[in-house]
């Protein structure tokens, strides 16, 4: 006998299934359409180029779970649940093939193996759901906020799985299934019902079948109306992810005289993709777990922000659509909902994102460290939203912490945020024999020390170390000297796009004038800005970080770190070097290139590195509150027991130096990698 089972055994009237299915699909589509319609309030976003690459990304994230698995515990559980569902859906599809298309697939060895797979998948899914339940309701990690929907969704899935197994068990007993060993979970369960009569079993089976069917169809219909919506929203959001270099911000076209509003203050000023982001967020809280602002008790949580925008958007979007296109049902409903919460529709329409939805403190708290975006499984882009809000505050309202004005003015008047006289910019290089471009006209390589390397006494030492290394490797290089200006990173990330563009254009012009093609810089912020922001304004340069260049020189044997440094070193990843530019390896290789040095890694490193607190222009802002990011990061570095905290970013170095002083750790030093190498070749 060929192994098989009778489809729809014991289910007269199963054709009703199609009707129920149709209703469920209808509800599902209606729900999905609402998402689509709401998105129409957003501004255009593009994001349609390179569909193949987009799709490949979706498939790898959905089936491979790359992002989700970065957090092992919930990641693996979700992976199991996901694949359990994939297998079960496949099984259901096979049943449909047999039942509806008459293809004889559910038989023979295939049937048996599939049955086994389905049973194992179902059991695994049950375990995953149980673990999720345990995590959410017993362990209660900080990053999870729990609402009723979370419970319903888990219960519903659990219910479908359990009824499925019950169904199987009833059928096994009632039909004395000879292949029951291939459905072990059903078999074990069936022993519970061994004593029942066949007729009773058939009644139980029939009832369970319908209950199972209704819950499964209900589940399908419920998807768009619940957190389960992530099942389709996440792949869609991943599809429309940014394919531009990490951290790319959209420039404002100041030439456009039509444009009267800059940045974002109202939810409809976001692009539809930014709005889709908020819908795709499923509150997993990975962002929050890795947000230095949140962890240092600032009033910012990337998750909270995304969710707050979503809640506001969901109420306001139908109202906007109603206002734009006359009355509609959702508009009425939204108005009712709004009225129910004690707010009138008019009040919602009046609400600004800034202040009413997201506090200004939260907007300024972000260091743009990109940790949230790096972790988000839905590939939500938080930072460009923050910057859009900042742009509005700076360009439209001129409302920001007062320290910022000083930094802006200094950048305007003296081309550096500290406001040191611009004529002193090349003073650090006096007596070093470093030519300026103006003096020699051209060079193979432009060394860009940045404002910190040029003005800050601590970081001047780093610039000097780099010069020493380049000179001993015989590199033909020059600096811009007093012609160099702040790269504009801080201005841009603080929302002052106007100032940024004027700085960028001046620098681009200067460099083009000298035919500069290749730049090495000690500052990851300059690196990121010149490599990714400048091309938007016609400045195409090859920009490398000094750690990359130095590593290359070591590998080529042009410099030889020979002096033994008996020291344990920990390396602090700069956000703009690591997460923004994926330069994780070169600095570590450099540490290892020094004889005698042992590298002691911090727990938070590479993609999960913890920001020093100075990114996103926060270098120029006071960090208020008890907990300081720089102190937290210093503590993390100290816990490795290392004697040297190595950095590769001037802001990080400043923060680590301050942190070590704060912790009164006179025995531990913060040093740039270039200094370590320079010591070792000396």
């Amino acid at each position: 006998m060929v192994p098989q089972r009778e489809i729809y055994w014991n289910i007269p009237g199963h054709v009703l299934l199609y009707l129920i299915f149709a209703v469920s699909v209808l509800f599902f589509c209606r729900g999905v359409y609402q998402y689509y319609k709401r998105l129409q309030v957003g501004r255009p976003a593009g994001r349609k180029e390179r569909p193949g690459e987009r799709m490949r990304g979706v498939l790898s994230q959905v089936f491979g779970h790359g992002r989700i698995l970065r957090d092992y515990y919930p990641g693996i559980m979700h992976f199991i649940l996901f694949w359990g569902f994939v297998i079960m859906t496949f099984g259901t599809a096979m049943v449909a093939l047999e039942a509806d298309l008459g293809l004889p697939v559910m038989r023979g060895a295939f049937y048996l193996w599939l049955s086994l797979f389905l049973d194992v998948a179902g059991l695994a899914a049950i375990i995953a759901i149980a673990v999720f339940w345990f995590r959410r309701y017993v362990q209660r990690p900080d990053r999870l906020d729990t609402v009723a929907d979370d419970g319903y969704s888990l219960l519903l899935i659990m219910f479908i799985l359990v009824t499925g197994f019950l169904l199987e068990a009833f059928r096994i007993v009632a039909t004395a299934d000879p292949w029951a060993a291939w459905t072990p979970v059903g078999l074990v369960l069936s022993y519970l019902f061994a004593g029942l009569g066949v007729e009773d079993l058939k009644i139980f089976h029939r009832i369970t079948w319908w209950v199972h069917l209704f819950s499964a169809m209900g589940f399908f219909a419920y998807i768009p109306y619940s957190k389960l919506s992530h099942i389709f929203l996440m792949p869609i959001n991943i599809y429309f992810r940014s394919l531009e270099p990490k951290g790319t911000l959209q420039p404002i076209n100041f030439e456009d005289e039509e444009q009267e509003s800059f940045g974002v203050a109202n939810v409809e000023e976001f692009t539809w993709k930014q709005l889709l982001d908020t819908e795709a967020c499923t509150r997993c809280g990975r962002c929050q777990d890795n947000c230095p602002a949140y962890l240092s008790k600032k009033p910012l949580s990337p998750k909270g922000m995304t969710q707050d925008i979503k809640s506001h958007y969901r109420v306001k979007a139908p109202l906007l659509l109603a206002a734009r296109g006359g009355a509609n049902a959702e508009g009425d409903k939204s108005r009712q909902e709004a009225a129910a919460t004690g707010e009138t529709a008019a009040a919602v329409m009046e609400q600004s994102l800034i202040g009413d939805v997201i506090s200004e403190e939260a907007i300024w708290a972000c260091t743009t460290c990109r940790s949230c975006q790096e972790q988000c499984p839905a590939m939500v882009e938080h930072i460009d939203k923050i910057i859009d809000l900042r742009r509005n505050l700076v360009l439209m309202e001129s409302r920001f912490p007062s320290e910022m004005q000083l930094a802006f003015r200094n950048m305007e008047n003296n081309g550096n945020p500290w406001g040191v006289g611009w004529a002193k910019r090349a003073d650090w290089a006096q007596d070093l024999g470093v030519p300026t471009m103006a003096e020699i006209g051209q060079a193979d390589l432009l060394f860009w020390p940045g404002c910190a390397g040029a003005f800050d006494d601590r970081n001047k030492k780093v610039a000097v170390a780099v010069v020493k290394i380049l000179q001993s490797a015989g590199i033909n290089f020059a600096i811009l000297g007093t012609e160099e200006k702040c790269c504009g990173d801080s201005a841009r990330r603080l929302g002052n796009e106007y100032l940024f563009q004027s700085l960028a254009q001046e620098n681009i012009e200067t460099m083009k004038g000298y035919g500069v093609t290749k730049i090495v810089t000690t500052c990851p912020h300059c690196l990121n800005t010149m490599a990714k922001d400048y091309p938007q304004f016609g400045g195409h340069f090859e920009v490398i970080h000094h750690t990359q260049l130095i590593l290359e020189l070591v590998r080529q044997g042009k410099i030889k770190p020979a002096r033994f440094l008996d020291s344990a070193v920990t390396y602090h990843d700069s956000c703009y070097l690591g997460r923004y530019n994926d330069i994780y390896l070169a600095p570590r290789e450099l540490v290892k290139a020094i004889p005698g040095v042992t590298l002691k890694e911090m727990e938070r490193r590479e993609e999960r590195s913890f920001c020093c607190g100075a990114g996103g222009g926060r270098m120029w802002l006071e960090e208020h509150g008890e907990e300081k990011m720089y102190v937290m990061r210093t503590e993390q570095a100290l816990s490795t027991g290392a004697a040297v905290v190595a950095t590769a970013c001037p802001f990080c170095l400043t923060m680590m130096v301050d942190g070590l002083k704060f912790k009164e750790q006179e025995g531990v030093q913060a040093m740039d990698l270039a200094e370590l190498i320079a010591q070792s070749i000396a």
Partner: protein
Amino acid sequence: MKIVVCLKQTFDTEAKIQLDPSGKISNENVQYIINPYDEFAVEEALRIKERLGQGEVVAVSIGGAKTEEALRQALAMGADRAVLLQDAAFEGGDWHTAAVILAQAIRGMEFDLILGGQVAIDDGAAQVTTRLAEILDLPQVNVVTKLDVDGRKVVAQREGDGATEVVEVALPAVITAQKGLNEPRYPTLKGIMQAKKKELKILGMADLGLDPTSVGSAGARTRVQSYALPPARKEGKIIGGELPGTAAELVRLLREEAKVI
């Protein structure tokens, strides 16, 4: 309330001061800003206008073409219109002639209040607004750190030596701003855009009906003989020795050498 703000464009505070071959202060490679004290005055004028909900703020300056930038900045901050007093005949003038020119320009305007900075950071003279008040026969309150407009009078807090005075004066009057009066705003982009379209009138000798002998070097009451740079900043002096000698020496140096006590 119609407010006239007198402002001056100065070198940036960090500007490197050098002499040109003719021995004058070189203006090569120098970044310009609005004299910070005048910027307090602009800000205060805007705040008064905003508080009252009505009025006009007119920024007035004497200078060359470059001074337009300073006036545009005042317009970007929110001033309604600007007047640039520009004429080759103004060259070589002093604080007296500056006051004469300003007075002539302002006399033709309607105003309730004239604001300016208490001092300009370039020449540090602190004369022009007071001279202007004298020419226009207006009362003055200098070095003001707080200003309240109360109907047709203002109440100003002014810094005296060792005491703060609360001074009341009827309008129209001349008030000069001291640091602490306010924190000037950073112009919004909208402001910058609008500033490009706002009225900036350029007036010269003829427009003002000035007598050539009253301005420029002909009208000046003072004459600069020469400029000099201070000797290069000495290395900081580390006071050697032991207490209490070091402390006593420090006090002596502060008094006799640095002359700051």
